[in-house]
């Protein structure tokens, strides 16, 4: 083959090569030497930089590398339990399972969303809304899709995790209510910690997303219940995925709270109140310990577990029976005829009446131009103190009111604990109102009118009381004059079962007058329940002597519609029904107070509920006469 087949072009090139002269070669070599110098210099720059980063500052970066990869994960402690007085578990903690999704790990999000929609039983739009709400969350962080899924869903997701890339189950503790909504207002609920609460906790016990007590004892005893968080040191990758566990500090469970409440009794009270608005309070008269503290209707506690929805909250606000306030301590109602006990004590104390004073009730009493009517139009005839209390004769008390100074009446009311907070360890307690002449001047810039006293003596007018206050007063009358602070916590118990705090009874005051006068009231209350004409006969029990007083509190003055059929009155204008009682009359143990909002008559609406609570109490605790025999 011809080896000189190359193009003519190539030939010229070869001629050129031979032209490369020594001088030019020298210049090129000089420039290549400069290039070598540049290479060496810049290599030295890199080496110096490496020295600076790896040797000079190396330990600093080593520390930062550690911070990069080691995360301290907080482990939420199991919250303390809530027990009743007989150590029955009312509220505990269970693991709940949330579905979270790390979008970055999902190659085909549309398919996963479609599958999840089927599994969770949610609309695709519901899931998309959740995803949209978490748009700010980086794609490599888990996004909460659904809280508190059930076991079947959990098992299904775990078994099909290969079909659901990026979807995980997260376990978090959640409240479990073993007695449903029992004592819901007292228990309160948890909610996500807000910014203010987060800033307030300087000890760093909390972090964003924590659930914290928002109401009731969950809030008040938050520090006892929350326990101590554990820490899990984990090695994570850049996406925050756990790769290895390095060290673990177990969380410390919270302390248990033992209530003074008797679950059975509370159940009975709430059952009796079902469908009605109002409150039931029952206490041990010798300690002030609460056996029942119920506000009806109850809060739907489970609605709060995963964070309450706007709809559920709005439904509570719109409910005509007003489930949100704790009516036992926040509801303020005119005491009505219940207050006649105070008037009677004032009359006795001020010497206006004696046990033998007899008044002729003709159905009304005239003062000035106005006739003050007794509830019984035909009149009660000749009544003494016992009958006046038993049959709730208004005229008898009007008579006292004609001579009684309103400020003196207020003194006796205060001496029984009315007009001020009882001091129960719950938030938002109301103090009620016991009017005085001074109060009227301050509030209305008007002097006290004698006619107003006549409204006050039968518990209408300006008077306002809470069911809890009435219960405290009843217990005080029953126990011979000692005012106890109502308590609903008996003990705080640490996770080892050791009692770390006891709550002994607290005396907050004493009835300021003769004990004998209290006995006269008690006698009247026994008659009210047990005499044939007594207003409280609906609370009568066969084996136990119950003593009680009814009350019917006017919501609006209905004198001008006197003849209207009761059924025709709209619900929210109907009278409130009161009944307060203690038993056994011979040696009182329990005081029960019932208020039924718009229940019309104390005797017919409230007394039967008190009776059910009392019957349950003696069924649970036995007849006191049998109990005392061994002593």
């Amino acid at each position, binding site marked *: *083959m011809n*080896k*000189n087949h*190359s*193009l003519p*072009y*190539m030939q010229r*090139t*070869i001629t*050129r*090569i*031979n032209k*490369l002269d020594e001088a*030019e070669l020298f*210049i*090129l*070599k000089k*420039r*290549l030497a400069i*290039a*070598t110098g540049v*290479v*060496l210099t*810049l*290599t030295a*720059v*890199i*080496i110096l*930089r*490496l*020295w600076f*980063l*790896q*040797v000079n*500052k*190396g*330990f*600093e*970066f*080593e520390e*930062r*590398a550690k911070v*990069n*990869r080691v995360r301290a994960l907080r482990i939420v402690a199991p919250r303390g339990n809530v027990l009743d007085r007989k150590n029955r578990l009312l509220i505990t903690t269970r693991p709940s399972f949330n579905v979270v999704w790390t979008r970055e790990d999902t190659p085909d999000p549309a398919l996963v969303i479609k599958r999840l929609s089927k599994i969770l039983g949610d609309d695709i739009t519901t899931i998309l809304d959740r995803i949209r709400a978490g748009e700010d969350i980086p794609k490599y962080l888990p996004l909460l899709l659904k809280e508190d899924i059930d076991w079947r869903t959990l098992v299904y997701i775990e078994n099909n995790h290969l079909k659901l890339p990026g979807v995980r189950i997260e376990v978090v503790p959640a409240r479990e209510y073993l007695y449903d909504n029992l004592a819901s207002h007292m228990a309160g609920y948890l909610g996500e910690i807000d910014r203010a609460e987060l800033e307030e906790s300087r000890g760093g016990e909390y972090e964003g997303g924590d659930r914290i007590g928002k109401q009731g004892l969950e809030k008040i005893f938050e520090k006892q219940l929350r326990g101590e968080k554990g820490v899990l040191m984990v*090695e*994570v*990758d*850049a*996406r925050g995925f756990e*790769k290895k566990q390095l060290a673990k500090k177990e969380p410390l469970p919270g302390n248990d709270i033992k209530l003074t409440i008797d679950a059975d009794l509370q159940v009975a009270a709430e059952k009796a109140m079902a469908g009605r608005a109002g409150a039931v309070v029952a206490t041990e008269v010798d300690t002030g310990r609460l056996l029942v503290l119920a506000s009806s209707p109850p809060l739907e506690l489970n609605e709060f577990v995963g964070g309450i929805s706007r709809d559920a909250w709005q439904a509570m606000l719109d409910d005509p029976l007003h489930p949100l306030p704790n009516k036992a301590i926040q509801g303020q109602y005119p005491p009505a005829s219940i207050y006649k006990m105070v008037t009677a004590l004032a009359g006795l104390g001020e010497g206006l009446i004696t046990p033998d004073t007899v008044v002729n009730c003709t159905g009304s009493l005239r003062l000035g131009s106005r006739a003050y009517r007794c509830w019984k139009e035909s009149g009660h005839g000749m009544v003494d103190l016992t009958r006046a209390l038993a049959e709730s004769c208004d005229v008898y008390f009007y008579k006292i009111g004609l001579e009684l100074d309103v400020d003196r009446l207020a003194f006796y009311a205060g001496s029984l604990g009315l007009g001020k907070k009882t001091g129960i360890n719950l938030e938002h307690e109301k103090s009620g109102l016991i009017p005085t002449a001074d109060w009227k001047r301050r509030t209305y810039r008007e002097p006290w009118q004698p006619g107003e006293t006549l409204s006050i003596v039968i518990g209408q007018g300006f008077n306002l009381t809470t069911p809890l206050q009435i219960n405290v007063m009843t217990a005080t009358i029953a126990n011979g004059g000692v005012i106890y602070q109502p308590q609903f916590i008996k003990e705080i118990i640490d996770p080892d079962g050791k009692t770390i705090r006891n709550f002994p009874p607290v005396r907050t005051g004493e009835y300021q007058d003769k004990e004998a006068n209290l006995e006269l009231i008690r006698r009247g209350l026994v008659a009210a329940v047990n005499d044939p004409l007594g207003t409280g006969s609906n609370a009568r029990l066969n084996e136990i002597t119950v003593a009680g007083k009814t009350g019917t509190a006017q919501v609006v003055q209905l004198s001008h519609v006197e003849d209207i059929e009761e059924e025709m009155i709209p619900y929210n204008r109907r009278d409130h029904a009161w009944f307060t009682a203690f038993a056994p009359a011979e040696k009182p143990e329990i005081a029960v107070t019932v208020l039924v909002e718009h229940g019309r008559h104390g005797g017919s609406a409230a007394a039967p509920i008190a009776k059910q609570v009392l019957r349950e109490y003696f069924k649970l605790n036995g007849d006191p006469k049998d109990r005392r025999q061994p002593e």
Partner: protein
Amino acid sequence: MFRFDRRLLLNFDWTLLVTVVIVAAMGLANLYSATYSSEAGASSYFFRQLYFYLLGSGLILAVISVDYRILLTLNYPIYIITMALLCIALFFGDSVASTQRWIDLGLFRLQPSELAKLALIINLASYYYRKDTGKGFTLRELVAPILLTGLPFTLILMQPDLGTALMLAVIFVSMTLLVKLKARTIISLASSIICLIPIAWLYVLKPYQKRRIFTLFNPELDPHGSGYHIIQSKIAVGSGLMFGKGYLKGTQVHLKFLPERHTDFAFSVWAEEWGFIGSIVLLAFYCFLILLALKIAGSARDKFGVLLCFGIASLLFWQAFINLAMLLGLLPVVGMPLPLFSYGGSSLLTTLLGLGIIFNVGMRRYMTSNP
């Protein structure tokens, strides 16, 4: 047709080959670690890179079997084909991370911008070789090389791939500085570059690229955005300390804190696992490799060979320097692979082709006449 000449084998630079093999072995070992996972073991990246080495070795053999001077006749066809590929990539190519850099060839995706570097070197070398009168280049004579560089530069900038585009400019400047220029030319070129910088800042750089330049000076400004790469790379390198964390034991790598650890940030993996000492060893081999290439350039039999070798040596050197300076936080983050170290078929084949040309020039340094 082709008669094998013994002298070719005698003049083959075995030292350079051994150096290349050592650096390649380090790169492969490092890639194995960078993409290793305890669950899955070796990754497909490692094997793919290995195949590319085999393919590249074949290419080297092909390249050295023909006298490099054939490139003087092939320079324009090579240029035109490369530009056509760049246009195809830009208008019909696969879009990855909203850039248009790749052409899908079925077996692998070709990145024509890598080939463009080599095409530019060949064309600049042949232009300067042919036009050199020995009196120095005038500005008018530089118009052609500027246009030769400007076309691929613009096409690559449109992808957009600032790193590779800048690399072309750096190659142009390096090679032009090697040939003799008239003093006037140097002055006017330098002043026009100074004028061009503000224009480039205002109209050419994308916002994310400007951000990268800002974060160079203070990466903590944007620790989760554009500063993330620099911060994580510095942490990985710095935490390697004097002796490193040990092979396969780099926490920042294996916990995926280090981004792009198998491509541009491959050296950070090396520095974390082998420490300062290991980094120095690698740098020494690298430096040696470049110096050998420069030495071959200096011993070439003709000026074309000198220019070719020098162009390729500068390509290798500047890529390595910019890559290292970038991941040590000395230069802004631009896409720039570390030759023989970063994963990437197109980049590796380009590097091996370039090395093949250097071997070729070195083998034929004593052949003053047509065999």
